[in-house]
């Protein structure tokens, strides 16, 4: 009896995939629910420009979350992304003092961001050090360098056209940030779910040893992921700096934890091996909706984070609890 007699799928079906769809459907339901709640709670919400403002809330972190998702799926983590952003921003601000123009500024951010990622990647894949502590170290290092350069000063004086990235609109109410985020999301989705590179990332996250024994170049793949994360941090720093119009060494404080929250909320297993970009995008939307909606209600940011914290824990706990005690309900 051969397999073809039983099943010849040209598309994926099966329990493996549909389990995932459930998570994303759940997120979608939550997103819609929060959207509705927001519109009921505040008259200012259902306004096109208002909604557009909403996007600023999560695009920068979302961009990082896209790359972070792949990294976490492969079994590593990068806590230094926000510090990376700060460093990129500081160096951009530094260049501004010398009159450098916008294209060069963007170039600086991208190069510096990627180099920071290279540094992380080299330490983790080259020396085999655990990424959580390495990136705690580089987190201090990168932001520390920003402090050395900038101290308690502020860089201002960014060229006018630089403000386009963080404040400009591409078409009607679609901001540049949002457009960029969507494009990036598509690219990362394709990378993770439609390329052999992405397949290898999943394999490594599920069983690094077998992946190695199957001829996958684990080191190189992980190194690339760290570089990607660095690159996205650079891009995000352009957007944020452009939106704020200034640079302080404390820029983007706390972004790394929010980005990781987006990733985990999006259904990526923190231990690696499973996850989807769709989920991360939905999670980014949800977090944006929550923070923006609460902001409209004048809820202070600190209190908002309680919601996010609970959201994170509950969404992670749900499948575990369901698996363990769900049978009680079924019987």
């Amino acid at each position: 009896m051969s397999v073809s007699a039983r099943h010849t799928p040209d598309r994926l079906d099966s329990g493996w995939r549909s389990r995932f769809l459930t998570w994303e459907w759940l997120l979608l339901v939550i997103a819609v629910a929060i959207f509705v709640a927001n519109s009921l709670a505040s008259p200012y919400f259902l306004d096109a420009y208002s909604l557009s403002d909403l996007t600023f809330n999560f695009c920068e972190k979302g961009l990082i979350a896209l790359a972070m998702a792949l990294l976490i799926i492969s079994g590593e983590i990068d806590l230094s992304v926000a510090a990376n952003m700060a460093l990129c921003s500081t160096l951009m601000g530094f260049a501004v003092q010398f009159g450098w123009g916008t294209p060069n500024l963007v170039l600086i951010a991208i190069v510096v961001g990627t180099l920071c990622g290279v540094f992380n990647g080299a330490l983790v894949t080259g020396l085999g050090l655990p990424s959580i502590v390495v990136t705690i170290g580089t987190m201090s290092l990168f932001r520390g360098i920003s402090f050395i350069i900038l101290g308690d000063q502020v860089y201002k004086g960014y060229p006018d056209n630089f403000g386009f990235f963080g404040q400009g609109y591409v078409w009607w109410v679609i901001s540049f940030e949002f457009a960029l985020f969507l494009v990036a999301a598509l690219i990362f989705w394709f990378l993770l779910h439609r390329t052999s590179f992405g397949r290898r990332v999943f394999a490594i996250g599920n069983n690094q040893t077998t992946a190695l024994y199957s001829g996958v170049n684990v080191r190189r793949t992980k190194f690339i992921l760290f570089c990607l994360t660095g690159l996205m941090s650079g891009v995000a720093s352009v957007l944020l700096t452009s939106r704020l119009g200034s640079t302080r060494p404390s820029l983007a404080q706390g972004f790394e934890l929010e980005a990781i929250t987006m990733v985990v909320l999006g259904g990526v297993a923190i231990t690696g091996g499973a996850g989807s970009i769709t989920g991360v995008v939905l999670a980014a939307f949800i977090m944006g909706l929550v923070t923006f909606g609460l902001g409209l209600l004048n809820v202070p940011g600190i209190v908002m984070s309680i919601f996010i914290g609970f959201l994170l824990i509950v969404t992670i706990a749900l499948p575990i609890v369901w698996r363990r005690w769900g049978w009680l309900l079924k019987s």
Partner: protein
Amino acid sequence: MGGLRKSRETWLGLAILLLIGLITLRFPSFAAPSNLGEIFNDTAILIILAMGQMVVILTRSIDLSMAANLCFTGMAVAMLNAAHPGIPIIVLIGIAIVIGLALGAFNGVLVWKVGIPPIVVTLGTLTIFRGATFVLSGGKWVNADQMSPAFISFQRDILLGIPVLSWLAILTVFGFFIFLSRSSLGRFIYASGVNPTASVYAGINVGRTKFIAFCISGAVSGLAGYLWISRYVIASVEVANGFELNIIAACVIGGISIAGGIGSVAGAVLGALFLGIIGNALPVINVSPFWQMAISGTAILLAIVLNARGERKKGRIILKEAA
């Protein structure tokens, strides 16, 4: 496991002495006992917190919520003190520890009973606790004038020439030392981190051990909450913002392995002292304090690289010489 372990901690100790020595060469007053005592006093809170974090890391977990825990607990006792200045400080400290422990237990239950990875749990409670501080205080601060004199002076009182704050740090370190080296629970904490499978075979409840570790880190955060608030005489939502990374840095520099099971009280203390000395030395040698973060970041990286060198697996010997 008595006393100082070889290699790791000794090297760190030597590095610290070297550091002090180098600075003293240029600034002789640095090594004066009164100055060193002040450095210790300044670092006391970090040392206390590092004890709690160490215990958690030993069980192969991590606690990112300690600073937020500290913030909430500190605010709670500060408000309590402002409203009822008559409550004895000892009682307030006890309350702080209990509140901290409860918060830690919340973390612990999620890790043990629900099975959520510690990094995710404490990532969540990090924001929850801090947000709860805001809710508790209504966004208001508690200032020095609202705190009772006893509240503020308690840790500053000098006992046998040493401030109470330093005494508390010493007692805490001593307590943890005894706990880890002499109690069976202490053994279980190490065992759970080193070899969870073998621990289960030996009859140790690894999940419950982790729960207790989180309770301990919570209690420690509670104590630190009171100390921090009374030291800097302000209670606000911003208290100890970002400090969780300093705590983890102290442990990493001190040789506590993130993989669990490796590390000592001496190491964590030395790690904290290292950071404390750098912080204190910078103004002395006229380096702007803005260098501090970068230096501790580099120290962490060096510590990881050097510690990793020390871990070598011994393989089986299959080949016999001239069979």
